[in-house]
């Protein structure tokens, strides 16, 4: 197997695994947060505004881990430093 094929395969595999596994944790976390917030709203409908605002903030916090995974897989696919290095080696 040539170097280019190996790097391409590993990058694609790594990108898929990265976002695939990375999204799981944040999805579970967001589900738990939403469930807890819905329960709180059902018990105290008067505090809906405060609960919703806190929910948004915590959702954003939880979601950022999935966003990191997404950014990493985007880098692996579209701006891969290893791939660029090998291409530059081959060209030069």
């Amino acid at each position, binding site marked *: 197997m040539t170097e280019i094929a190996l790097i391409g395969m590993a990058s694609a595999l790594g990108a898929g695994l990265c976002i695939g596994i990375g999204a799981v944790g944040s999805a579970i976390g967001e589900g738990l947060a939403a469930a807890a917030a819905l329960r709180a709203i059902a018990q105290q409908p008067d505090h809906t505004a405060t609960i919703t*605002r806190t929910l*948004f*903030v915590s959702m*954003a*916090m939880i*979601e*950022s881990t999935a*966003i*990191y995974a*997404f*950014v990493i897989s*985007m880098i692996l696919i*579209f701006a891969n430093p290893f791939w660029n290095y090998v291409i530059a080696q081959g060209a030069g």
Partner: protein
Amino acid sequence: MKYSPDLYILLDWGWGQINATLLFTWLIMLLMTGGSWWITRRLTSSTTISAGQNLLEVLVQGMVDHIEEITHRPAKRFLPLIGTLFLFILVSNVLGLVPFFQPPTGSLSTTCAFALLVFVAVPAYGLTTRTLKNYLGQYIRPTILMLPFNILGEISRTFALAVRLYGNVMSSTVIGIVLLLITPIFVPVIMQALGLLTGVIQAYIFALLALVYIASAMEEEKGEV
């Protein structure tokens, strides 16, 4: 495939270049300042007000109410920074629906600039209500062992602020492009509508997090350092 507006180079002089991020940032600045100037030219306090004045009043009053509800302080000091961040990100994200418009918030340079702004604003606002000793004391709380973790937390939340906004806006652009290749008829429209929702929520979240960070830095901490 160009996933970042940084990659569209419009003018290049060798020592500097103008890319789509800069162009659209300036366009939004022009649009917002020009629009605000046009509307506030003829302000009136009579019972019949123009639609534009109504819109701006609703926006500003809504932001003031929100800020006062969260910080329990007069909103006047926060409104210039937080309101500008919110409105700029909001307009930029919403205009992303316009064809050929690249939202400048989809570039890591823009969001990093915003996050650095918040990073500097947090101690700047915090030192207006607290002494330097008290402010620095929060880093060695509860013990001096926590110092590296507190500093790391400060840096990583700035980084998270930048990457969160960038990732969300960029992902809706990328998803749009990918879906155009797979199902070009109807599905991209739905994802665009979803992108609109995400854009508005992200603008709200960015402003809210910046406000929460600033407000927590202004809280006087009790107890001995």
